[in-house]
């Protein structure tokens, strides 16, 4: 297994519960507890369903099985078969039924068992969910949330390990979030359900067991990046599992006297460009880290935003991208590990960038 060291990143202290004050299941608002990322998702789903009759779940094996990653364990018992709906293996119908139900005022949360299976439902996601509000001249909305475990690291090979966020960032009309911590897993999901637009929540499967402090009822507004640490030598922008790796690399670098800023966009569409540009301008050096293959990946967009803005003038060195190999994901554990940026890769790239002109 190539599970990376996943440092517990600091909780979201700048953004305490500032959304609708929904009481957390079994926890007093304001309480902060240690939860795993999977628990944070589960607790949020529980809260939302308890709180709003319109919320219901659909997906493959989400009932008694609890989902392929156990995220929905226990929800069937609590909410019953009408609201926790095990589906046949029919991704078009799962997403499409979500679109139709959302159009009629429900708040469906559908799960795709692996994010790779968006490929089976792209029409419904891209041509229907994302476009209906615009195409209909604003006469309808599609408050659909699609949850999907993304990323590699489990030896599941090329069809179960993709990080496809860039595709959806390129689709106007859908919002895309990539929580990197248990707190964000809760907060962003809550915001996603609260939003009248379709939102794709890409959970990273290597993070499900990661623990972190989570304020009860936590809410993280969509479209707000988080500065996870600040340093003056260089700015790392990283997404999903790469946030934790960047934080671990930052510790190592700090030990050598290199101080880095780590920015986690959290929502990649709409992107919090202002925060990213400010933080890059502050150090003049940008290292962009993603797990997805490099070519036309999401951090290319960040590179473009940097160099077409005033931040360009603050740059002291070329922008550096660290990304997955431009290959399908290989099965063998060592090959898989070699295919995505690891902590030492980040350290090396950051060191070089920090020391270079």
């Amino acid at each position, binding site marked *: 297994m190539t599970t990376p060291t996943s440092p517990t990143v600091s909780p979201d202290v700048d953004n305490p519960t500032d959304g609708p004050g929904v009481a957390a299941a079994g926890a007093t608002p304001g309480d902060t507890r240690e939860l795993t990322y999977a628990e944070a998702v589960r607790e949020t789903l529980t809260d939302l369903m308890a709180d709003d009759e*319109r919320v*219901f779940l659909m997906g493959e094996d989400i009932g008694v099985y609890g989902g392929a990653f156990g995220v929905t364990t226990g929800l069937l018992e609590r909410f019953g078969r*009408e*609201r926790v*709906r095990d*589906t*046949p293996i*029919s*991704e*078009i*119908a*799962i*997403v*499409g*039924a*979500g*679109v*139709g*139900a*959302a*159009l*009629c*005022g*429900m*708040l*469906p949360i559908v799960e795709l068992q692996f994010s790779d299976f968006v490929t089976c439902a792209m*029409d*419904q996601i891209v*041509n*229907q969910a994302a476009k*209906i*509000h*615009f*195409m*209909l*001249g*604003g*006469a*309808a*909305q599609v*408050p659909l949330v699609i949850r999907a475990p993304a990323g590699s690291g489990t030896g599941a090979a090329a069809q179960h390990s993709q990080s496809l966020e860039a595709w959806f960032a390129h689709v*106007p*009309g859908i*919002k895309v979030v990539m929580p990197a911590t248990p707190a964000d897993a809760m907060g962003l999901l809550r915001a996603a*359900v*609260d*939003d*009248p*637009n379709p939102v794709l929540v890409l959970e990273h499967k290597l993070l499900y067991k990661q623990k972190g402090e989570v304020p009860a009822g936590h809410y993280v507004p*969509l479209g707000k990046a988080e500065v996870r640490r600040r340093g003056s030598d260089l700015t790392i922008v990283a997404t999903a599992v790469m946030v934790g790796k960047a934080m671990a690399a930052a510790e190592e670098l700090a030990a050598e006297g290199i101080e880095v800023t780590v920015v986690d966009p959290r929502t990649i569409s709409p992107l919090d460009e202002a925060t990213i540009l400010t933080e890059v301008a502050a150090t003049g050096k940008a290292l962009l880290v993603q797990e997805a293959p490099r070519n036309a990946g999401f951090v290319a967009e960040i590179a473009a935003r940097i160099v077409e803005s005033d931040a360009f003038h603050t740059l002291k060195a070329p922008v550096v991208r660290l990304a997955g190999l431009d290959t399908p994901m290989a099965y063998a554990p060592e090959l898989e590990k070699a295919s995505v940026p690891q902590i030492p890769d980040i350290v090396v790239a950051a060191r070089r960038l920090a020391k270079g002109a």
Partner: protein
Amino acid sequence: MRDLAKEPEAARRALETMWTARRFEEAVDQLFARGLMHGTMHLSIGQEASATGTCLALRDDDLITSTHRGHSHCVAKGANLTRMMAELLAKDSGYCRGRGGSMHIADVATGNLGANGIVGGGIPIAVGAALAQKLTGSGKVVVSFFGDGAANEGAFHEAANLAAVWDLPVVFVCENNHYGMSMAADEAFAIDNISARAGAYGFPGVTVDGNDLQAVYEMVTTAAERARAGRGPTLVENVTYRWKGHSKSDKNLYRTREEIAAWQERDPITRFEDAVRKAGSLTDPEITAARKAATDAVREAIRTANAAPAAPADRDLLLDAVYADADAGNHAEVPA
């Protein structure tokens, strides 16, 4: 079962609806030919009994999803002609504010969840809408219109099965007009009746003469009752024919003039007029009046729509229109 031809009010309404759809599309055809309309469009002339008979079998608050060939569904479900025409003419007062055009007209207020540019794309959406009705116990039924061609999309299959296993209140209305663009249904299917596909999902399927308004009305009524009673979906195959080309670029090379002429002989409107005459529910002047009312309404719609301002070509307005306002919350516009 009611006999629509025998009831003056129902007969008048059916006739006026069919004529309105017909006149609307004839007008669109001409506006296109004269270069006054833009984009592409798909006319359902010759298929009006399918849309009309189906919608007459529904309650006002029942829902439909429609297709690229959706004008007659829209009319039959009660849409405002001026807003339809305004949309096609790319006006700000159109149903979609000029952003959707013919393939995306919806009228949420009359229960039309929208046409669709993707063949089969509306079917899973209809199933989801039906699920919402079931979950909320609204008692409403959803009709999903689609073509023969669409029945070969994966979306049809998955949606039909889901509706079946969950006993959802949906009626699948397949308008088999013999062609998917140029592809003859004979070549796209190795079965005689598309309705036979219902057997693959465990619900009833029936093939209907889609040019016989009463037959369509009866079948959809039965299917809607079944759906409303919580007994699940039905597949109703309305066999019909489109008189015009698939879209403006069609040269009709895949079918004969004789075939088209033979089907024009089976004009669904004429047939229903004959039935009404036979039933004696409306007089000839009343029949003519229904037709004239439709003609006038369409003419008036064109006039009003034409006079309206064009959709403004403002980039900021467009960018603002992509997302629903998050501050307004996720409150539904269609009360389910």
